């Protein structure tokens, strides 16, 4: 119990939860303010999960580095539990907010996007470290957002984040990314950043 508590403290779970709460509050307030405008709800369905996912991505950084790797016990289980908990809380809170929106199945789209973008953030955290892991989902969302920019009627398959919630392949994309990201972080951890920019 104490081990779990200390692990969560080391991962700044308190500030992470505060940020997730903030993201949920902004989502709720924004959706209420725009009065179910479908254009803006579409923006919210992509952007607020992006914020939640990147916050969770940043929290996978370890402050202890190699010392934790050599002396830590049950690290994969602890990492998995920590991230799964944050995902459940972040995704669940957004799903509650998204119920009853004019955007069809807005709650499901929010959950899918949190999951997939968090997976992307975890994979990026493995490569560039937790602190800068937000850059991958941010870049991906920009690409997906403008994937139909040239007037194409159909979005490319990889732009799952902007697909409607009912689009089944997009759920698989998100689930696969999440699984890959969770596995990478659970077993290998986020990259330590001994470089100059950290």
């Amino acid at each position, binding site marked *: 119990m104490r081990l779990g508590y200390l692990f969560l403290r080391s991962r*700044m779970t308190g*500030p*992470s939860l505060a*940020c997730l709460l*903030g993201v949920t509050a902004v989502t709720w307030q924004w959706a209420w303010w725009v009065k179910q405008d479908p*254009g*803006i709800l579409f*923006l919210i369905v992509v*952007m607020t999960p*992006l*914020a939640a996912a*990147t*916050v969770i*991505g*940043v*929290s996978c*950084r370890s402050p202890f580095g190699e010392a934790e790797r050599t002396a830590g016990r049950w690290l994969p289980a602890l990492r998995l539990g920590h991230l799964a908990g944050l995902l459940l809380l972040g995704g669940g809170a957004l799903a509650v907010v998204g119920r009853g929106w004019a955007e069809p199945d807005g709650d499901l789209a929010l959950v899918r996007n949190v999951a997939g973008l968090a997976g992307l953030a975890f994979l990026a955290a493995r490569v*560039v470290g*937790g*602190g*800068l892991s*937000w*850059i991958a989902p*941010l*870049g991906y*969302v*920009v*690409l997906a*957002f*403008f*994937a139909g*920019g*040239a*007037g*194409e009627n159909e979005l490319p398959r990889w732009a799952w984040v902007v697909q409607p919630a009912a689009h089944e392949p997009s759920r698989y994309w998100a689930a696969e990314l999440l699984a890959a990201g969770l596995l990478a972080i659970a077993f290998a951890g986020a990259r330590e950043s001994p470089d*100059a*920019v*950290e």
Partner: protein
Amino acid sequence: MSVRLLTIEARRNVGLWFFPVILLISWWLLSAWGWIAFLWESTNQQLQASVVPFGAPAIAGAAAWMAGRDRRRGIQDLLATTPRHDTERLLTLWASTALWGVLAYAAFAAYMMGRTALSATWAGPELWPVVVALAAILAHAAWGFFFGSLVPSRFTVPVVAIAAMMLLQFLSGYMVATGGGGYSPTWVTYLAPDKPAYDLAPWQALIYMGLTGAGLAALALRRRWGTPGFAVLAGSSVLAVAGVIMVWGEWPRYDPAKPLAYNGWGQVIEQDSVYVEPEPVCEGSPVTVCVYPQYQPVLDEGVASANRLAAPLLGLPGMPLRAGPEDTTFTGGGSTSMLRVGDDGHLDVSRFVDKLVADSGSLREGAIVNEAQLAVRQWLVGKARLPNWAFECYEDVPEQQQYPGQPTAGMCQATARLARLSPPEQRAWLETHYRDLRAGKLSVRDLP
């Protein structure tokens, strides 16, 4: 701010890693927007729209990250004991981070404008939109740095970057309902720095220059209260607010009832000058193709297409030998490959083919509806074997889905019959029937 310190900070800066990422994503966006390298109009519009959507939020995040660096390393107290003024040190760190965003933008702008300058045949660069995007990158860096310094937490970084992106997308996608289910942009839309609007660009630039100054002044004031800081903050805020007011005021509101355009102060917006159509450029023989001068780089391709299409009809009485600008359409955009960005675009001469088989009196609302004309048109297109001209004959199209001019089975059979004839037979048939064909007096049954 010493150059040496700036160089050291720039070298040991996260912006260095963001530089290639910004270039790559901007390149991808450029391909998505369908940039046409030889058109200044395309370059002027797409420079902003390609770099800002990712570059500005990314630099905001990078600046927030760098602002928290000293705290992450636990060297704040150590640095406080050094003789250099802390505001100056922070400004150097901000400048070195913003520098990478500016460099990425400058490299991108230099490439786009350089390529256009080498290939364009008409018009020129618009410099205000270039300034708008530059000012927007600096403003994002300034406010990102301010928030990163205000709340130096790791969580501030993604929140700042994503908030910047949300705001940008919210502004640039801001539309109001116009009735009848339509939406249109308003003056709020043009507060976004990735929305090119030549008349509003100086005011957009003013907004972002003001925001840059305000962000830096706020940063300085956080360290030390003082009159100079307040003066800069007040002056910059006035600039930004003035820019917003001017965008609101100068944005044209069109009144379809008059029809006139008004500005925000109720004044009629007068046209500066009457638009003078540029003199077309003509080339080719026996069929001459004329285009507006900006399309000159694709004129050769248009001449070749028009001559291939017209070849079976050459010498027939009444056959048009000139394709004017109204008979051609430039189509471009939507690069199919990241390696061919800027190259796509060609001159579509399909309206000239219409002219070859139909005179203006036989058209209905500008379109061919006579099946014999359509059949011969398809035969000409098939014979010329032009790329991008594929058509299909649908055998069983339900009646409610049919539209005038759609290739029907009967029409396609007539095309096939004509194609099966030997060239002398085709020529003989055309010599006898070409005039009637163009006048719309034939039906598919009259085709051989």
